[in-house]
C-alpha cells in the first residue's frame, strides 16, 4: 500500500489505475481495448532457478565445448519436417496488426539465425514469404486471406484454436488499421472494424479436427508439418486432444502472450500463466508416450535465454516469442518518448497497438509511420536479440553440463516460491518438496 507525502493511504483495491479505468469507462462507454499482453504479476520462469553443476554434475566449458541448439519440428507425420538452428521461433502476428515492414523485418531476423516466423490473421504477404526461409502459415477461424496457393508455399501449417491473450475470444482489427491493402487481402470494406470469429467455420471439436487436419495433409500431399495452437486454459486435456487429432506440433500460449488488440478484461482475466501450462502440456505428452514425438512449442512471456532454457528444462522442444520480438524491433523504445508523451503514454507503457499510430512503425498501417521501420535494420536487431537469447540459454545449459539445450531437465531446476513450485511441480529451493507431492518422492 502506498502513502503520499501527507501520510494518506492509497486504496489497494481502488488504486490509481483502477480509478482511471472506471472514470474512462464512464466517460467513453466502452471497454478498454489494447495490445501487449497481461500486465498483472504472475508466477513465471523468474521464480525458478538452475542448480548448475556441482560435485555430482560436470559442467561444459563455456567458450569451447559444443552446446547444440537445433530442433526438428513435425517429425510425427510430415514428409518435410522443419529443421531449425535455434529453438526460438517467431509467433504468429498478422499483417494488419503489424506493418508490412515489420513483417519483413521479422522474416529477415528469423532467417538470419535459422529459425521460423509465422503469418497471422489476414494471410501471407509476398514480403514475408520472400524474407522468411521457414514460414508457418496460420489457419484461423476467420480464414481471412486464406488460399491454397499460399498453403502450398508455406513450410508448416498452424491451426489456431486460441491464443494466450484471449482463449475463447476472436480477433479484432479496428477500422483505423484497415488500409486498402489490408481490406483487399481480407475481402472487407476499408475502414470498418474487422471481427475475426472465435470458432472455426467448418469444424467444432477434436473428431472434426482430425478430419480437417487430414484434409490439409491431403491438399499439401502430406509434406507440411501441422501445428495446433491453443491458448493455455485446460492445457492437459487440450494437449491430449490435439495429439489425438493428429497434430505434429502443439503450440501452447500462456496468458502472458501478446495481442494486437483485445479487451483488457480478457487479457488480464482469462487463461492460465505459461509456467503451469508447460508442465501440464508435458505431462499430457508423457502420459500418451508422445513427449519428443509430438513437439511442444511454448509461448507467453518469453523474454531472455533464461526463460528459453527453463521452458526447455521443463520439457518444451522450442519456444515462440512475439512481444519480445516487437520490442527488439523498437517498440516502446525511449527514442520515441516525445511522441509517446503526445499520445498520453510513455516508453515502457505503450500498449495502444489497436490505434495504429505506433511511432516505431511496427503496429501501424499508416504508410508514413510504417516507413520509419527499416526492415533491414529491424531484421538485424531481431537477429541480434535471438542470438543473444540463444547464447544465454547455451550458457545455462553448459553450466548444467548439457551438450544440447534440449537435454536440460526438470531436475536442473528449483523453485523460489510456493506458487511456482506448485504450478511447475518443481521442488522448492532447499527441499525435495512441492505442494501436492508426497514428502521425499521427488
Amino acid at each position: 500500500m502506498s502513502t503520499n507525502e501527507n501520510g494518506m493511504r492509497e486504496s489497494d483495491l481502488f488504486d490509481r489505475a483502477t480509478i482511471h479505468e472506471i472514470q474512462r469507462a464512464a466517460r467513453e462507454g466502452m471497454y478498454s481495448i489494447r495490445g501487449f499482453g497481461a500486465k498483472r504479476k504472475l508466477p513465471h520462469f523468474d521464480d525458478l532457478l538452475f542448480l548448475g553443476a556441482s560435485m555430482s554434475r560436470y559442467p561444459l566449458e563455456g567458450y569451447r565445448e559444443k552446446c547444440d541448439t537445433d530442433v526438428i519440428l513435425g517429425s510425427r507425420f510430415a514428409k518435410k519436417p522443419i529443421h531449425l538452428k535455434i529453438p526460438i521461433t517467431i509467433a504468429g502476428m498478422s499483417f494488419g496488426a503489424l506493418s508490412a515492414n515489420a513483417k519483413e523485418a521479422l522474416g529477415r531476423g528469423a532467417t538470419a539465425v535459422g529459425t521460423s516466423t509465422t503469418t497471422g490473421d489476414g494471410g501471407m504477404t509476398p514480403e514475408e514469404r520472400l524474407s522468411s526461409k521457414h514460414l508457418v502459415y496460420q489457419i484461423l477461424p476467420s480464414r481471412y486471406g486464406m488460399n491454397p496457393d499460399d498453403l502450398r508455399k508455406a513450410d508448416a501449417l498452424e491451426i489456431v484454436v486460441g491464443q494466450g491473450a484471449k482463449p475463447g475470444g476472436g480477433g479484432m482489427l479496428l477500422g483505423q488499421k484497415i488500409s486498402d491493402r489490408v481490406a483487399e487481402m481480407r475481402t472487407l470494406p476499408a475502414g470498418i472494424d474487422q471481427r475475426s470469429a472465435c470458432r472455426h467455420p467448418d469444424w467444432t471439436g477434436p473428431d472434426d479436427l482430425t478430419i480437417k487436419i487430414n484434409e490439409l495433409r491431403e491438399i499439401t500431399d502430406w509434406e507440411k508439418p501441422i501445428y495446433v495452437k491453443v491458448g493455455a486454459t485446460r492445457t492437459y486435456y487440450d494437449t491430449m486432444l490435439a495429439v489425438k487429432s493428429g497434430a505434429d506440433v502443439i503450440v501452447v500460449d500462456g496468458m502472458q502472450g501478446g495481442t494486437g488488440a483485445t479487451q483488457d478484461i480478457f487479457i488480464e482475466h482469462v487463461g492460465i500463466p505459461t509456467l503451469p501450462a508447460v508442465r501440464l502440456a508435458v505431462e499430457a505428452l508423457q502420459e500418451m508416450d508422445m513427449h519428443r514425438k509430438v513437439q511442444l512449442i511454448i509461448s507467453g512471456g518469453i523474454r531472455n535465454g533464461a526463460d528459453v532454457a527453463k521452458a526447455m528444462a521443463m520439457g518444451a522442444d522450442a519456444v515462440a516469442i512475439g512481444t519480445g520480438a516487437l520490442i527488439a524491433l523498437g517498440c516502446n523504445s525511449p527514442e520515441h518518448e516525445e511522441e509517446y508523451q503526445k499520445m498520453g503514454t510513455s516508453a515502457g507503457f505503450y500498449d495502444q497497438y489497436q490505434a495504429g499510430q505506433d511511432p516505431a512503425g511496427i503496429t501501424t498501417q499508416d504508410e508514413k509511420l510504417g516507413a520509419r521501420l527499416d526492415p533491414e535494420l529491424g531484421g538485424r536487431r531481431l537477429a541480434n536479440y535471438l542470438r543473444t537469447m540463444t547464447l544465454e540459454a547455451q550458457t545455462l545449459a553448459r553450466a548444467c553440463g548439457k551438450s544440447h539445450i534440449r537435454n536440460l531437465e526438470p531436475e536442473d531446476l528449483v523453485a523460489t516460491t510456493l506458487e511456482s513450485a506448485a504450478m511447475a511441480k518443481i521442488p522448492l529451493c532447499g527441499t525435495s518438496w512441492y505442494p501436492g507431492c508426497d514428502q521425499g518422492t521427488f
Partner: protein
Amino acid sequence: MGTETVNLLDTELRALNDRLHHLDLSKDPSHFVVEEPRGKHNIACGLTDEIVVDIKGHAGYYCAGMNQRATLTIHGNCGIGVAENMMSGTVRVEGSASQSAGATGNGGLLIVNGNAAARCGISMKGIDIVVRGSVGHLSAFMAQAGNLVVCGDAGDSLGDSIYEAKLFVAGSVKSLGADCIEKEMRPEHLKTVGALLERAGIDDVDPASFKRYGSARKLYNFDIDNADKY
C-alpha cells in the same frame, strides 16, 4: 478428353488425391469417375487443374475442399464443409449437403440440388452458392462477399453479422441475424439471380420470386448505443 475410373474400394484416398494433384494434361485424362466413395472424407480436395470429376455416391467431410478450376459433381449427399474455401471452378451436389457448405469460399460456384444444413456460406468471401432446397440456421454468418441464392426457406439468424455478401431467398426466412435486413430487389439483382439459376440448371424458379437480404452496415464500427444488438 479421356476418362479414368478410380474405385475407392480398392484404391486408397491418398492415391486418388495424389493422382489428381499431379496430372499432366497433355497426356493424362481430364475426366475422372470416382466409384464407391462410401462417405469417405477429403475426396478430391485441393484440385488445381481444369478437370471434371464425377463422384458416384455419397461423400464425407470437405469434399472438393479449396477447389481451384475443377468441375466436380457429387452424385449423392455430402458431409460437412463441401467446397470449403473454394477459389474457382464448380461443385455440384446432386443430393443434400451437411453443415458449412461453401464455408469461406473465395470464388467459383457451389450448387446444392437438395437442402443445405446450418451455416451454409459461413464467412463466404466471394463464392456463389445456389441451393435448390432450403438452408439451415446461421447461414451466411459473417458473410463477406458473393451471392447466396436459396430457392426454398432459410432457418434462424440468416446473415448474422453479415458484411457485403448478397443473400436471395425465394421462400420464408425464419429470422434475420444481427445487422441483416431485407433490401430492395432491383433490376441488377434480378439479373444476378437469373444468371446464377441458369448456371445451376434451375429453370423452374422465377427470379422475381426472391427477396434480397444484406447488411444494414450499422454494426461496422462499434457504437456503445448498439451494444444490445450484438
